[in-house]
């Protein structure tokens, strides 16, 4: 290639100058830690003394009942919570997309409101509401739906239910906004044409709305998956992973391994790489599913 001209050179230099500060910071605080923790995941030992352990950590993973517990819990949350939330969000968005609906603005704002609260604030709120003699039990008892108070946070099953309701409460509105936006981009005349052709409402939803929203549905399911796999704040405030590890998540386990017990950085890094790998696999699968149906 010919030698660069002065103009080309200054264009190149400027290009680097604009992105350099960000790249330096990302290199230091993102790339370096990732590489470092990959290396760490092959080390064993406690505190700051470690030695190369090869695949020892990976072997340990398969035999660690707490890890398997956390993995199972995380998957339970993922499989139950993400679909419920996305379906709810899609339903609300469809209802709110109707211009003839009275009070649209109010409903939209109300359903969106939870996602501006801080994770910690709403977790605390839920903790108080779901206390043994809290407002939820009082309400259920008073309405005669249950005879005895439910030990929400003290029972492995109900604790999961509380965590799932909490996350769903917080994030449904958030996903709904993405769907609403995408729906507003769909040309209204398509629906009008379908109505003239006598296509019933459910078919319009299923054969027009859903396929046209596919990219956004994919996007929301990927970000929700990532979010759920990283679940930390809510469980740490609501249950601390209890009772008896029934709501322990991978992130919380990593935190415990690092900062609660005698730190074991190598093993904790291995667990964190499990999340990385899971995010990668699941995003890829979701991507494949979305593509196949096209």
């Amino acid at each position, binding site marked *: 290639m*010919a030698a660069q*001209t*002065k*103009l080309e050179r200054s*264009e190149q230099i400027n290009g680097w100058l604009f992105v350099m500060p960000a790249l330096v910071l990302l290199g230091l605080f993102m790339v370096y830690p990732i590489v470092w923790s990959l290396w760490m995941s092959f080390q064993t030992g406690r505190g700051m003394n470690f030695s190369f352990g090869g695949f020892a950590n990976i072997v340990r993973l398969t035999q660690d009942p707490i890890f398997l517990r956390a993995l199972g819990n995380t998957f339970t949350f993922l499989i139950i919570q993400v679909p419920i939330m996305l379906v709810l969000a899609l339903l609300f968005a469809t209802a709110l997309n109707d211009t003839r609906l009275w009070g649209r603005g109010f409903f939209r704002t109300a359903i969106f409101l939870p996602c501006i609260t801080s994770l910690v604030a709403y977790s605390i709120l839920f903790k108080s509401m779901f206390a043994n003699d809290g407002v939820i039990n009082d309400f259920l008892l008073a309405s005669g739906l249950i005879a005895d108070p439910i030990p929400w946070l003290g029972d492995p099953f109900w604790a999961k239910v509380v965590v799932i309701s909490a996350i769903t409460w917080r994030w449904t509105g958030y996903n709904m906004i993405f769907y609403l936006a995408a729906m507003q981009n769909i040309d209204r005349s398509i629906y009008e044409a379908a109505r003239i052709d006598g296509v019933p409402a459910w078919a319009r939803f299923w054969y027009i709305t859903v396929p046209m929203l596919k990219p956004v549905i994919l996007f929301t399911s990927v970000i929700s998956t990532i979010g759920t796999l990283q679940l930390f704040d809510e469980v740490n405030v609501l249950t601390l992973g209890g009772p008896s590890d029934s709501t322990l998540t991978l992130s919380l386990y990593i935190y415990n391994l690092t900062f609660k017990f005698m730190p074991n950085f190598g093993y904790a890094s291995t667990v964190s790489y499990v999340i990385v790998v899971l995010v990668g696999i699941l995003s890829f699968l979701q991507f494949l599913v979305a593509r196949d149906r096209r």
Partner: protein
Amino acid sequence: MSNLKLRGIRKAFGNLEVIKGVDLDINSSEFVVFVGPSGCGKSTLLRMIAGLEPITSGELDIGGERMNDVDPSKRGIAMVFQTYALYPHMTVRENMGFALRFAGKPKDEIEKQVKEASRILELDPLLDRLPKQLSGGQRQRVAIGRAIVRHPQVFLFDEPLSNLDAELRVHMRIEIARLHKELKATMIYVTHDQVEAMTLADKIVVLREGEIAQVGAPLQLYDNPDNLFVAGFIGSPKMNFMAAEVVDRDNGKLVVALANHGGTKVALPIADSSANKGDKVTLGVRPEHFADAGKGDSDITVGIDVAEHLGQTSYLYARAPGGEQLIIEREESRDHGALDSLTVAISARHAFLFDAAGKRLR
């Protein structure tokens, strides 16, 4: 008022060569128009002159100085963009004074220049508006005003009128011509529009796939095109091209037979010795140059598909017996709608001949 000299200018984007060696001289105060089909490199060439696009190789001189590596703002040029490129957050006044502000000119000096430009372009009542409060034509005037304020030696226009409606386009075209007269600056103007090219230019540069196909005064290109490409590009409706074969050479005349017109022979005053008997050639006749039957050199009869009557002129969309499409222009005739076929004459002095490679035979 500078002259420009382009020598062996090339531009490559990665491995794709877009400008393939352009040599061009532009005189001081000349109005030069670049035309050519979409994607032929007009904007790229203009942007290299402006300094917005680095020159891959070759030499660019403006006013006798080598400008290849000079910053766009120091080349003595100003540019008017197709999309106007007005700063949307600034008023008309601020838009026009922006360059002077960064050249460190004092406030009253800027104000004076802006006033002067707005007088020339009649922008006074609009000075405190934002671009979004202006019509398309007004925006384009502001864009031109922004260029004038800098007193450039060379004005560069990249399809400045193509976002305007037809009527406004005519109006602004005249405005630009007036401006050229008044400022006497060198102007380089890129357009798709034949009429703009023909009416504005002192000199037209026809570009084709990154190379100059021909340079010349507007009528020179019309009367005397160098090649099939220029012949087809200049003139509207397009020149008709008819497949032919050289059949004879006869005291300074070349005789060709029209393949799709039953071998009708046309004898042309062409001395070029490179054409031999049996060569495939193309005969070009402009729609406006067909004569009435018997009044030219050779008669041809064509079938008429559609007739468009525009009042003074009519365009007949015709078909040769061999299948070729032809357009024939007729003046003051209104009865062709009913016709199925028509006989017209080709006059040798208004016909052009091109060899198989598209080169003009003279």
